[in-house]
């Protein structure tokens, strides 16, 4: 019996090894897609984006990029970024040059553009242009052009959610203008623009004007829950990338840009603020600026229902350090009185930007990026039931009271 068992096991192992290895694929034969940029195709239908960085590609390349489709017509141009392994090796001998991106020798990555109307088919069509098999587990960023975003992010995102190779921690960015141009950037200290861009939002703990929640998972969650959200906007030059402000989304469609200061306000209200800088004019010195480094901010949003009238109370408790003064010609010790004044001044400033932002979101965009609806549903479920259906019309006129309470803790190492 034992021998029989053993032989069955051995047979099974051998059989599976010989016939098996169904999934085995050597690591160097995979093309690790690091970044995806999605643009609208054709690029300029009514000369809409005249100054777009990308010019119309030469005819010859376009031949490769087009594909036959089953239904509909080409709508999207997807660009993937694949690292070129050989060239970045330590002891490589001379570049082979002449990759399709046309940047010649020093290129670390290869950007393949494919035109089509569904991402799965574009993905597979790209396989006909490379000997690597495209693999998405290491995808770092997805960049969508603002035209795609305005049409609705939900349309394009399904493939990236459904495919098990995709991770929900992939960062999503909105580019102003052509998305592909972001991938074409070669950062100075990184080989791949995608990896570089992926790491930038980590600095959001230091800079309050950057949006920290940019995960694909976050986006899907919000779309599924019917919530509005903000995604970071990315702009680029030839060798630099910057995330600057964001794009506000309502019902999965981009409704407009959000400036950096507005992002700061949104982070305050969402209780997402983890560090940044606020400056106000000095109350005592003409032309002086005093700067505070915010160390922590706690925000409480409370829905208040009075006489069946809905409003939100927002209390922001900010703690910070006195960081810098500019153009204040004094060497006197900072008095408690001055500190108190400053605390009030900072509070006012925070209230001002928050109020401004809230009213812009309410009136101009109608996007509930602060998630008041969610807070209301969680805390006042009975009331929420009543107005759930007409929240879109309630939101723009709902009253918001903002109060910021600032306290300064440290003055740095000089008095």
């Amino acid at each position, binding site marked *: 019996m034992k021998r029989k068992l053993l032989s069955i096991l051995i047979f099974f*192992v051998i059989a599976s090894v010989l016939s098996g290895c169904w999934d*085995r*694929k050597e*690591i160097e034969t995979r093309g*690790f897609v690091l970044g995806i940029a999605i643009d609208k195709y054709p690029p300029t239908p009514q000369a809409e984006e005249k100054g777009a960085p990308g010019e119309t590609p030469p005819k010859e390349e376009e031949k490769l990029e087009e594909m036959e489709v089953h239904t509909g017509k080409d709508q999207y141009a997807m660009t993937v970024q694949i690292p070129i392994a*050989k060239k*970045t*090796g330590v002891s490589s001998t001379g570049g082979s040059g002449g990759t399709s991106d046309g940047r010649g020798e020093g290129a670390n990555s290869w950007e393949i553009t494919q035109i089509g109307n569904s991402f799965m088919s574009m993905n597979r069509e790209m396989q006909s242009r490379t000997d690597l098999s495209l693999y998405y*587990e290491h995808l770092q960023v997805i960049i969508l052009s603002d035209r795609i975003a305005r049409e609705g992010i939900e349309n394009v995102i399904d493939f990236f959610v459904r495919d098990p190779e995709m991770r929900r921690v992939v960062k999503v960015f909105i580019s102003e203008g052509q998305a592909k141009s972001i991938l074409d950037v070669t950062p100075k200290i990184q080989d791949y623009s995608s990896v570089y861009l992926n790491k930038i939002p980590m600095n959001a703990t230091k800079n309050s004007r950057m949006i920290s929640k940019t995960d694909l998972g976050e986006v899907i969650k919000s779309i599924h829950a019917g919530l509005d959200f903000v995604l970071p906007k990315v702009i680029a030059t030839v060798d630099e990338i910057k995330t600057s402000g964001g794009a506000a989304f309502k019902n999965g469609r981009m409704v407009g840009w959000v400036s950096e200061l507005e992002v700061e306000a949104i982070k305050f209200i969402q209780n997402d603020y983890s560090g940044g800088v606020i400056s106000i004019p000095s109350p005592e010195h003409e032309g002086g600026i005093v700067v505070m480094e915010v160390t922590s901010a706690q925000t409480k949003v409370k829905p208040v229902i009075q006489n069946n009238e809905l409003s939100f109370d927002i209390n922001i408790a900010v703690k910070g350090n006195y960081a810098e003064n500019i153009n204040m010609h004094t060497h006197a010790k900072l008095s408690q009185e001055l500190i108190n004044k400053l605390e009030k001044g900072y509070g006012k400033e925070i209230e001002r930007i928050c109020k401004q932002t809230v009213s812009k979101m309410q009136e101009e965009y109608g996007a509930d990026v602060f998630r008041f609806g969610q807070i209301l549903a969680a805390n006042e479920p009975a009331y929420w039931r009543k107005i759930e259906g007409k929240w879109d019309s309630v939101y723009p006129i709902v009253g918001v009271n903002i109060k910021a309470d600032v306290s300064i803790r440290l003055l740095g190492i000089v008095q």
Partner: protein
Amino acid sequence: MPERGNIMASIFRKLLNKKQSNAENRDNADIEKLQLSGNIQDNLNRLKNIMSNSGDIKTREFNLAGSNMKAAVIFIGTLANEDMIHQHIIRPLIMESAILFHKNQVNFEEIKNSMISAGNLKEAAAFDDIVLGIMSGDTLLTIQGFAKGLLIESKEYQGRTVGEPSLEPSVKGPQEAFVEILKINIGLIRRRFRDPNLCIDMHRIGRRAKADLAIVFVKGIVDENLLSNIKRKLDTIDIDGSATTIQLGQMMTERPNSVLPMYQTTERPDKVVSAISEGRVAILLDGAPNTIIAPVTLPMLMQSPDDYFEGWFGATIIRLSRYVALFISALFPALYIAITSFHPGMLPSNLTLSIVRTRSGVPFPVIIEALLMEFVLELLLEAGIRLPRVVGQTVSIVGGLVIGQSAVQAGIVSPIMVIIISVTALSSFSIPSYSLGLVTRIARVPFMILASAFGAFGVSMGLLISLIYLVSLKSFGVSYMKPISTDHPSDWKDSTIRAPLWSMKKRPQMLHPQDIIRLKRRNRSGPNEN
């Protein structure tokens, strides 16, 4: 099994048995029937005959103390201490006992009690006793007119002196190792354990070789079932020639085909002492510097003597890292294969990209590359053992330079694979038990094959299979994974961790010791007592 066995083999075996038993019967009949006679010449001739008239048999005939009473000694010159025979047997008999012969008539008892100054002797009449005695270095004194003789112990074996342990070195522990002579070995144990309950049960093994064998245990601690189990197994062993300790161990276990060592072998007396004081049994064999300790479990093989010469905290950390080494040694190449060729998504992106860089241009799939390197590594090891020490340097040069450097530069293997294989090799050598280290080296290959067929799933299935196998394995009735999987939580104190010695108040209960308590509460010197 036997009915399935090869017919030819069984016929052959039968023939062989027949032959053997015939020869044996004749010999045995001769020896068993024979008793010493009163005629010394006759006795000597017969003994010489039985012992094939070998050249190193020495006899000396003489008259007792000037009387005309004839006597003779017979011994094997290469085994016995001739000096001792002269000083303590022949000299007193010829020279010094003349005064006793006033009656010119003397009886056997008187000779035995008053005339021989040798320390250890016994009366013997049967030839089989006598022959065995002479063959092990004793001297027979036979006296004209008496149908019995005296078997006087005069063994002096030549062998090396107690040296340092070579296979199981330790940093702080005692630097003594067993030698080939049983007597010295038992002495080494006794010196460390002066309990009168220390029991040394002598046996002989081998139908022809008749080697001395000692079962060492502590009465009152050892589990009687275990002891009788071991004795029963020893009795059933039927072996013709001599056996080494390893062969003996293999013949005694329930699972002789197991790849894992089912008994522990050691050359360290301190290890044997701590084992028997835990309630285990040691078996010493004359002529072998290795001792068998049974039963053994996996965690015991992972212990090193140094664990007990360090503070408990350091010892625990080192022991845990040894377990990590065990896993690395068996699994690292397999995991590398699984992750690179199946799930590269599990690695951090930067690491993935650098692996891709090192792999690009390597002509083989990872599995082939790994098997290749593994094979080369085994070759290097084997060559390192076989080569004489003088040329041993060559191996490291060839291994280090050619395999490490040139193979990478030639693009046959990737540098990362060299790193993986070296780390694996290092890990397998940090396992204290050589046989266990060998098992991990063997186990690596099936794991690699599973990994290349099913990826991480294959590896975890392989782990489960080996876990099931390990748990179901038993060494002399003790489950192999104890005390990691245990009935007695107190046994955990000396498993993957090593608790402070004062806290290990009980003996390992998986061995079912009769006396459980190792430390009495009063004797303990815990952290708060001095």
